[in-house]
């Protein structure tokens, strides 16, 4: 694998300390709740009603998360997904489809004021906002680096991908990384076309990914622990939680938007 690394100006690292951060630990929830919370918390941070926040996601169901601009039919084998109880949700950021089972991914969102990434190009901002994760993975023995535009990758294959939205007065940056995977089920529920692989040589679909589990014997919990520790060291942040108000707002958004066919099949 060629090693094209995305860099950013290292002096940006000092900016994390410009804010008081809150860290919300993972807890299992319905797929659409994770998407709705992204909108709610981005709005709250953008309006100054919440401190800048890092939230770890959790799932109570197998899920395919498709990008804001993806066509469901082009990405998902809809009947197979339904048969295997895999929910399909559309997130509010661009980028590609990700498939995971509960307990196999490490996914998080950063909700921050735009000033955190001021003056950085989009590619730089992606690498900057995920740098603490790449550093943590390296510390835990994974030969990881950031590949443009939005991939955390490694000598063992792609680990995960990030996506951003700049809306509601804030930056939303979220990243799904794969701790472990079910490659057979993945090829049954996702569509991976030849055109998508066209500039990636002759590697097959499941060889493009290299989940952490294939590269370490550490349990998934060790990664959550190390990531939380590192983010606290980096930012001086402390643990927090989703408020009742935010939870209610997200439940309402699930009902009115993110669980509707109109949203999920926005691009059929």
């Amino acid at each position, binding site marked *: 694998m060629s090693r094209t690394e995305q860099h950013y100006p290292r002096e940006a690292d000092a900016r994390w300390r410009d804010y008081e951060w809150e860290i919300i630990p993972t807890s299992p929830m319905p797929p659409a709740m994770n998407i709705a919370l992204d909108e709610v918390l981005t709005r709250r941070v953008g309006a100054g009603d919440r401190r800048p926040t890092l939230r770890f996601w959790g799932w109570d169901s197998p899920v395919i998360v498709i990008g804001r601009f993806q066509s469901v039919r082009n990405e998902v084998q809809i009947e197979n997904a339904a048969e295997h109880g895999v929910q399909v949700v559309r997130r509010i950021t*661009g980028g590609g489809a990700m498939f995971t089972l509960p307990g196999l991914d490490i996914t998080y969102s950063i909700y921050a004021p735009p000033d955190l990434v001021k003056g950085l190009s989009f590619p730089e901002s992606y690498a900057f906002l995920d740098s603490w994760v790449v550093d943590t993975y390296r510390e835990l023995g994974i030969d990881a680096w950031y590949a*443009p535009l939005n991939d955390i990758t490694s000598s063992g294959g792609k680990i995960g991908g990030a996506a951003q939205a700049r809306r509601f007065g804030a930056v939303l940056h979220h990243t799904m990384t794969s701790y472990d995977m079910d490659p057979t089920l993945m090829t049954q529920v996702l569509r991976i076309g030849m055109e998508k692989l066209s*500039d990636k040589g002759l590697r097959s679909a499941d060889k493009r990914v290299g989940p952490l589990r294939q590269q370490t014997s550490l349990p998934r919990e060790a990664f959550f622990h190390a990531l939380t520790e590192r983010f606290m060291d980096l930012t001086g942040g402390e643990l927090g939680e989703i408020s009742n108000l935010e939870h209610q707002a997200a439940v309402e958004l699930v009902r009115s938007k993110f669980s509707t066919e109109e949203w999920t099949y926005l691009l059929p």
Partner: protein
Amino acid sequence: MHGEYKTPGGKLVVVDFEVRDGKIVEPMVSGDFFLYPEESLEHIVGSLVGLSIDSSEEQIAEVVAAAVPEGTEMLGFSPEAIAIAIRRGLA
């Protein structure tokens, strides 16, 4: 019709559309690209409606580029990528 193009080192763009009276109708542009602001997609899609199927790649790219609102960031794709996907769909 259905055409796909992946920008080398970039993202996939897919254009699905129908052809009526020699013109493109009901276009849908999708893919794993990034676009800021998101609403710019409507302008891009709108510019494709009614395009002659005899339009060259360069002509399609020009029409799309002219429709992209100022200040829009297209990451991983471009008007040219959309034009290639359409020409492929028509091939």
